[in-house]
């Protein structure tokens, strides 16, 4: 079984902290991943208009690249890429008419019928690595950290691509428990962060982002755990604005789930690129005597 890894655009720039920590963790878990040798932007969102097939071409091309390598799985880290690839995959698997149109249009590509499975890294860790094996590899348990997992939208909606059966998701909780953290569930963990409205209607996006952050800290969490660079932007990078506008009562540390994985696997702070997080996130780890980043960034 060959496993392809699809990074997506943002992981190569703004979200290096999501990717680097994941790649180091995959190596430590002896998972044989290979980045697709050629890939393109998935388009970030699934086209919802019934007649708009052209925008499915980008994600389908990525899936064809994985199929050509003989992969039966393509693993993603970014929630938006996961959603876009998974939905395009289902479309190619289930909609005979659209599949034919798209395959005919891409006349130089091999025909695609949904052969590859799109898997989010959290599911990969649970189903392929297994919680027990992962638990046995933990060297630095995240003891004393009170973490609130934040799912957002694209890991769970729509139902046909949800990373868990719809209802009360628990995969993120299980993952963080394996890492040794205390997990705090909170009601806003599946609320939308405002997504791309941060560009078009920033006030609307800021309002929901503040609701999520306040919900997390009011439930007793010390930090939020994320898997999407757009959620990270709205929930972390924009915190300065929220504080300034009195929409938020205090700074809230945030981490990508892969950063916490790398720490717990004993890979140290270096691979986690905490310099790309808010300072307060690295400081919280340091206050718990967990690896974070060098002092120069903290001071």
């Amino acid at each position, binding site marked *: 079984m060959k496993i392809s890894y699809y990074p997506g655009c943002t992981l190569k720039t703004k979200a290096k902290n999501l990717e680097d920590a994941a790649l180091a963790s995959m190596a430590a878990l002896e998972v044989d991943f290979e980045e697709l040798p050629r890939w393109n932007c998935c388009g970030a969102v699934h086209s919802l208009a019934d007649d708009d097939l052209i925008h499915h071409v980008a994600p389908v091309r990525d899936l064809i690249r994985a199929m050509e390598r003989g992969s039966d799985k393509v693993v993603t880290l970014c929630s938006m890429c996961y959603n876009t690839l998974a939905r395009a995959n289902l479309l190619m698997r289930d909609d005979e008419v659209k599949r034919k149109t798209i395959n005919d249009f891409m006349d130089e590509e091999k025909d695609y019928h949904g052969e590859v499975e799109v898997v989010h890294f959290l599911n990969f860790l649970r189903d392929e690595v297994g919680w027990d094996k992962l638990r046995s590899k933990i060297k630095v348990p995240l003891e004393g950290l009170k973490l609130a997992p934040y799912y957002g939208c694209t890991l769970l909606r729509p139902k046909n691509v949800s990373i868990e059966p*719809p209802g009360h998701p628990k995969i993120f909780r299980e993952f963080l428990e394996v890492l040794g953290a205390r997990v705090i569930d909170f009601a806003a963990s599946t609320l939308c962060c405002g*997504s791309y409205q941060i560009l078009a209607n920033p006030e609307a996006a800021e309002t*929901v982002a503040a609701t999520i952050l306040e919900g997390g800290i009011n439930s007793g969490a010390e930090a939020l755990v994320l898997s999407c660079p757009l959620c990270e932007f709205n929930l972390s990078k924009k915190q300065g604005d929220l504080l300034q506008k009195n929409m938020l009562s205090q700074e809230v540390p945030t981490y990508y789930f892969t950063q916490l994985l790398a720490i717990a696997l004993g890979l140290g702070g270096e691979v986690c690129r905490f310099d790309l997080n808010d300072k307060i996130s690295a400081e919280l780890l340091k206050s718990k005597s967990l690896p974070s980043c060098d002092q120069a960034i903290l001071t």
Partner: protein
Amino acid sequence: MPITISEKTIKSDFIEKVKKLSGQNIHKCFQCGTCGGACPMSGQLATLPRKIMRMAQFGLENEVAESKTFWTCASCHSCSVTCPRGIDLAKVMEALRQLSLRKNVNYVEPSKLPSETVKEMPQIAMVSCFRKMTS
């Protein structure tokens, strides 16, 4: 402002276009309001999704367009997964956006974004926003 429902609006091809683009039967909506309860943007909306559905059922194209609801929608699918009638409302919102965008009007003008904004935004924010808000 009074809203006039006439034979002309009910028979307009707007209703058919929305149904076709969204692939959803908007007439199934029975106005329960579950969608608005689930919508993260409802606090910012002058017109809740339920009302948009009613207006669309009556072919009130201009009123729907003026509401701006579909421009505030974040395509989060919270409404779609909770609608008791099984309507994928996110697709209806997309159809409404597309009906505006296909008149060659952009809601967001990429060239007018401040350079600091472009610099700080993750790519997925820009790609998704331009996909939803430009023609």
